[in-house]
């Protein structure tokens, strides 16, 4: 009997111990009401300039398909962080709804005559969320942090700052003196930036998160970006709470210099990575916006939702491209005519109209619409008419190519893509077109993301699916990836003329001449070498309630909710 009682006790202790150890942590993870909410924001005025009535409750509800991996601008690399950092930080400039640079922390700026020096004049009323002024030193400190070889972990996006004089050398430990790097605080409110090359899109770049300032308090606290209470930020919103894998809450920042323009009081985000759940949650009135770029809408629901929610369903064109890569070092795609034949033998219209059904634009070039050219959009200035779809000509090219390479029949070909329903449907359609139009059998193979990307980057493939998202709004971001020494040149393009065009474009400050160079380079890539097979320029699908206004989507598809507001609704 004694033995039994002892056992009961032991069991209880074990069980209670388990429960307690877990409960203890739930208390500090909630973090509710930890900091007193200083809600000084005036309640929304009853009517807006446009005559719309604002809703009394300015709480926006959105979804993130994954946790924000980091709230540190120096370390961020993905969509989720992009949206969160656009709320919590502000760079020297912002980009408005029409993709124009407007003053952010910098009130004004001017380039030097040679286009290599920029002077930014900072506003004096910009403050951190704790009330400290935002100064030029904060930018110097933040940029040094990104470039410092000792930063742990090493920021993968440090190359975004390589436009600054000596930045690359400092980051790669070729020089150790940071004062040689082209950024200087002339005084508290003047920032001088020296660039290696005249870079016409530099001002636009400063709206990107890698260029955001950080508060000096982060210096001695490596964990500052994991806890809302230690995040001192300068944007329109502050992060109020963070429950890993479940939710985030952003509050209006009363210390933000332009807070009179900020109408939302609160942004509540759920973290759900099931797109079906996300859409259902939107339909059930639990979200004001669903879909890209932070979430997703299941492809098979697109046609239904398009009909059912005519006024809420949006397909925004974004400057991303979907394409296939030919490995130019692998047989049979080491022959240009064979590559060209494959690219000409498919119907892009059928793919966007019958397979993806997302309103995408068929692509015959590599630089998507929405990317800036010399005056307006690059794609309006230079058409992407590098080739046409023509089955007869494709057949003939294939014959010629096979003769050149000495084939009677083609070697076995495998097309690889990362596991995803949409990629699979497209691959099946394209393989079918190749079979029908060229009489070529191609095997398709899906690979898990990590496996896929490794194979593609190591050149262990023949044809592979790919997509490209721009780093900045200039054709260069789509062109310099194909130079001989670029780490992203998975097709192994090796064309000296191409490399020369890119090198020239880097040093040239004349917009028109740069665009000419990009056009010639694009022509080599698509028409002469046909190393990539463009398929379509992306659109991104989203659902937005009709009472949510002022959400801006930039050229790359990134979203900015900071100036959004809710009008009166049921």
């Amino acid at each position, binding site marked *: 009997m004694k033995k039994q009682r002892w056992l009961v006790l032991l069991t209880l202790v074990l069980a209670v111990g388990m429960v307690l150890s877990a409960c203890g942590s739930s208390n500090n993870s909630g973090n509710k009401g930890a900091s007193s909410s200083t809600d000084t924001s005036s309640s929304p005025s009853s009517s807006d300039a446009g005559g719309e009535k604002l809703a009394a409750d300015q709480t926006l509800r959105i979804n993130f398909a994954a946790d924000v991996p980091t709230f540190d601008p120096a370390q961020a690399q993905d969509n989720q962080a992009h949206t969160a950092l656009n709320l919590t930080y502000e760079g020297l400039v912002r980009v408005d709804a029409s993709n124009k640079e407007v003053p952010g922390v910098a009130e004004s700026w001017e380039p030097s005559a040679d286009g290599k020096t920029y002077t930014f004049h900072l506003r004096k009323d910009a403050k951190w969320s704790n009330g400290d002024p935002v100064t030029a030193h904060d930018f110097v400190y933040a940029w040094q942090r990104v470039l410092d070889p000792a930063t742990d972990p*090493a920021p993968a996006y440090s190359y975004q700052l390589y436009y600054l004089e000596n930045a690359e050398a400092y980051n790669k430990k070729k020089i150790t003196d940071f004062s040689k790097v082209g950024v200087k605080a002339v005084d508290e409110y003047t920032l001088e930036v020296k660039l290696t090359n005249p870079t016409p899109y530099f001002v636009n770049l400063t709206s990107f998160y890698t260029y955001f300032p950080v508060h000096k308090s982060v210096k001695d606290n490596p964990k500052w970006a994991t806890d809302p209470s230690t995040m001192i930020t300068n944007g329109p919103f502050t992060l109020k709470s963070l429950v890993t894998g479940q939710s985030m809450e952003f509050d209006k920042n009363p210390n933000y210099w332009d807070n009179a323009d900020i109408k939302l009081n609160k942004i509540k985000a759920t973290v*759900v990575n099931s797109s079906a759940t996300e859409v259902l949650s939107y339909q059930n009135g639990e979200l004001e916006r669903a879909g890209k770029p932070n979430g997703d809408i299941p492809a098979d629901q697109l046609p239904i939702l398009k009909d059912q929610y005519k006024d809420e369903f949006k397909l925004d064109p974004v400057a991303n491209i979907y394409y296939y890569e030919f490995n130019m070092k692998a047989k049979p795609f080491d022959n240009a005519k064979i590559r060209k034949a494959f690219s000409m033998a498919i119907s892009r219209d059928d793919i966007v109209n019958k397979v993806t059904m997302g309103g995408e634009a068929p692509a015959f070039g590599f630089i998507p619409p929405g990317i800036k050219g010399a005056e307006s959009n690059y794609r309006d200035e230079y058409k992407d008419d590098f080739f046409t779809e023509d089955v007869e000509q494709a057949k003939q090219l294939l014959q010629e190519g096979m003769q050149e390479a000495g084939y009677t029949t083609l070697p076995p070909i495998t097309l690889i893509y990362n596991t995803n329903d949409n990629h699979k449907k497209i691959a099946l359609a394209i393989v079918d077109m190749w079979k029908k139009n060229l009489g070529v059998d191609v095997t398709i193979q899906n690979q898990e993301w990590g496996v896929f990307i490794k194979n593609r980057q190591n050149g262990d493939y023949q044809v592979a699916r790919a997509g490209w998202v721009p780093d900045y709004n200039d054709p260069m971001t789509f062109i310099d990836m194909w130079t001989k020494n670029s780490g992203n040149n998975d097709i192994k393009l090796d064309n000296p003329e191409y490399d020369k065009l890119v090198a020239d474009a880097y040093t040239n400050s004349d917009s028109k001449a740069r665009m000419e160079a990009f056009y010639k380079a694009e022509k080599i890539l698509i028409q002469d070498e046909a190393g990539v097979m463009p398929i379509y320029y992306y659109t991104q699908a989203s659902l937005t309630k009709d009472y949510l206004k002022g959400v801006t989507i930039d050229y790359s598809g990134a979203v900015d909710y900071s100036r959004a507001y809710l009008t009166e609704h049921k």
Partner: protein
Amino acid sequence: MVRYILNKLFYMLVSLFILISATFFLMKAIPGDPFQSEKKVLPEIRARLDEQYGFNKPLYEQYLKYLGNVIHGDLGISMKHLNQEVSDLILKTFSASLRLGIVAIIVSIIVGVLLGMLAALYHRKLIDNIAMVLAVLGIAVPSFVLAALLQYFFAFKFHMFRVVGFENPMDYVLPVAALSAQPIAFIARLTRSSMLEVLHADYIKTAKAKGLNWVTIMFRHVVRNGIMPVITYMGPMTANIVTGSVVIEQVFGIGGIGKQFVESITNRDYTLIMGITIFYGVLLMLARFITDLLYVIVDPRVKLSSRKEG
């Protein structure tokens, strides 16, 4: 008794060691790594990251270092959730899973045993048939299908609950229902068959003949003996619920450990994969250990010393 527990603990440590080693090498054997993305990281930066995370060392050295750290209770820092301790992440996310799991286990036991008892008492009557049809459905319908159906009907169509959320007590209803359907079905069937057996046993007849009242017979003899198989099932059930919540957490947007586990693998977040694997391993071993002890308490006929590793 003490020897038995020490023996068990020893085997648990051995299993844990094998689990850690196997996971470590298998994980490293999958192509890909935490720093890979569509845009390739510059080679210089890549080399620096490899050095910072110790990836430049030979595999066996990385393994020994990791083992050393684990022995000192250090699970390392996540590679995707930057600068977050793996142990912190596990504790934070496990609290949600635990709340969900405990409610699901309690609901499963209560509902399952009640259903099973009713079915046994009304053997071959309408109630029995209904209970068993429910049980078959519960086992046959996968939890993620059930979750989607529950969301569609009870949240979207009838507006009784939220589709997503895990803050209010009401938010627990749908995920708990989806998660406990299978164990309920299983428990109901187990309880039913073992109770049927007990009801026909001689000692029940004796009890009835002695003139004991119905309540005493039911609770002192029938339930106590009839519930034995359910206790055996507690271990596997805890495992089922813990692992089953992986899908449920995804569908309902619950910040639990299952969701982190799936994402850590896609992200190749090595330290987090290892940390959660170890945590799951320990949790399941403990659940089984406690089940074994419970068994002894409920049924004195079971002697610990006579039982071998099971």
